């Protein structure tokens, strides 16, 4: 499998996907902390 970081579009898309994942991770941490 090709490394997505070898292309600019792969890098940008990976960054956006990571943003969405981390957003929901943070939301779930905040929900479990009752914040």
């Amino acid at each position, binding site marked *: 499998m090709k*490394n997505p*970081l*070898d292309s*600019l579009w792969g*890098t*940008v898309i*990976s*960054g*956006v996907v*990571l*943003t969405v994942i*981390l*957003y929901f*991770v*943070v*939301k779930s*941490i*905040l929900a479990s*902390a009752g*914040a």
Partner: protein
Amino acid sequence: MDYVPALARWIHFLAGVMWIGLLYYFNFVQVAAMKAATADGTAAGISKHVVPRALLFFRWAAVVTWLAGAALLSDKFVDAFLLRRGMTGIGVGAWLGTIMLFNVWVLIWPNQQKILGMKPATDEEKNKARRVAFLASRTNTMLSIPMLFFMAAGWSHRAVFGL
């Protein structure tokens, strides 16, 4: 007006623009430009006159950005890095920025020194250094996307984003 947080925020933005701006210059402009310049034999000028200067401002802007960010977090620094007490969003941003600073000083800069001939290296070591520096730089470009999201949305505007 509380001068320390205001100054820290201003400096954090100024240095951050320089750091991430140069990171985007490397990734969106220079990589493709070097490939084209190598093909027509004009890459030496970029390597000699542009890259060392860009790397100088790049790596020190990274340090200033991190220090100003730490000053801005102030007494909430530990809470942010431990992702607790409502500092989870900005804490994720702070962790991403810290990983990026590590990449700059531990992976990108030492390998660029080999590539640019500032440190002795064989051709094989230079080729390996090129790949490591490239992937570390691309990793930082990828990480900058969520990092900027959590910097923008994780603290002062966290209510807007539900964080």
